[in-house]
């Protein structure tokens, strides 16, 4: 690598009042150990302080630096420049979210969906404190643990055409998180959650494209979670038709 080598980043720029965005190119110093987020930070520090984007931990835990990198949803802290060098890199905000500014998307819609599935443990009967902990076997933990690894980075939303087409579809991460609680042996909230989950577009818009699972940085497998939610709903619906079924 030549000293002083640079790599070109085409970065999406858009102000709140703009109806469309434009791309601006930046020639950033090329470093083998830099990730895309390092390059963006360099732009912000040395070239253009007006560039807006979210980031925090730089280590794939906080879930705030998700962007479209050459059209692929990814955590910008996890994608190395050397994967693209000497070609340029196109950086855009996550697809299918309203853009607040530049690479920052509006989270309100996602957060409202997340809240609608009540992502917390719901007990039928709350035990008094002196009755002790709610115990769980390793197997009961394994039943939902995978789905609890979600960091709400929303890459799965940007990978899902149904999210782009249907505003009311709950989307991969939210459904996986609903499963995380529904499959928890300490939780009895499935009934309450079913109002949002089993709405017409809640889970049923999903056509199992499967890209949500491919782009997930935490191996949550939201696509599998959604299909399991459909199967669970169908089993429950048919069991109620049987005379000996529940309720």
């Amino acid at each position: 690598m030549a000293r002083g080598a640079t790599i070109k980043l085409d970065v999406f720029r858009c102000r709140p009042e703009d109806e469309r965005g434009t791309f601006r190119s930046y020639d950033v110093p090329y470093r083998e150990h830099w990730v895309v987020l390092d390059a963006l930070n360099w732009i912000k520090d040395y070239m253009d302080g007006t560039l807006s984007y979210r980031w925090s931990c730089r280590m794939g835990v906080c879930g705030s630096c998700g962007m479209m990198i050459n059209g692929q949803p990814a955590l910008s802290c996890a994608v190395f420049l050397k994967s693209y060098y000497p070609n340029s890199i196109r950086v855009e905000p996550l697809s299918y979210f309203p853009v607040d500014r530049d690479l920052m998307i509006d989270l309100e819609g996602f957060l409202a969906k997340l809240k609608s599935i009540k992502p917390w443990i719901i007990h039928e009967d709350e035990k008094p404190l002196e009755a002790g902990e709610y115990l769980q076997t390793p197997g009961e933990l394994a039943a939902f643990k995978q789905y609890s690894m979600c960091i709400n980075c929303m890459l799965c939303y940007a990978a899902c055409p149904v999210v782009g087409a249907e505003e009311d579809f709950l989307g991969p991460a939210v459904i996986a998180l609903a499963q995380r609680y529904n499959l928890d042996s300490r939780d009895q909230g499935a009934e309450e959650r079913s109002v949002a989950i089993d709405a017409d577009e809640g889970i049923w818009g999903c056509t199992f494209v499967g890209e949500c699972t491919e782009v997930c940085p935490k191996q949550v497998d939201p696509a599998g979670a959604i299909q399991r939610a459909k199967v669970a709903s169908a089993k429950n619906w048919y069991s109620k038709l049987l005379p000996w079924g529940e309720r």
Partner: protein
Amino acid sequence: MHHSKEVFWWSLFSAGGVMAALFMPALMVATGVILPNRGPAAHAQIHETVSFWPVRILLFVILFLSFFHCGHRVKHILMDLGLRRASGALAVLCYGGASVGTLAAAYVLATLGSG
């Protein structure tokens, strides 16, 4: 539990998907290769086989569920291609088509005569 009506259509879709996955390739080999090669002489045996009542019922189940599998999938393809606003009309068209296919299957299988 709260349920959307979609649970019903989806259950037909997935049961039909299983039926189509299990039966279609072999049926296609049968009708595409075996029957043409056996020629007209095979009619009596084939008639006897398909008019055996358990087979008729099985064929009906395969056809009914597979029709709804296809109807549901086609509806969702069209919705994903941008026709979400017409989803009501698509439902009538696709599930209606599947219903017509199912009724036709019931009629054909009921009037096979005995082998």
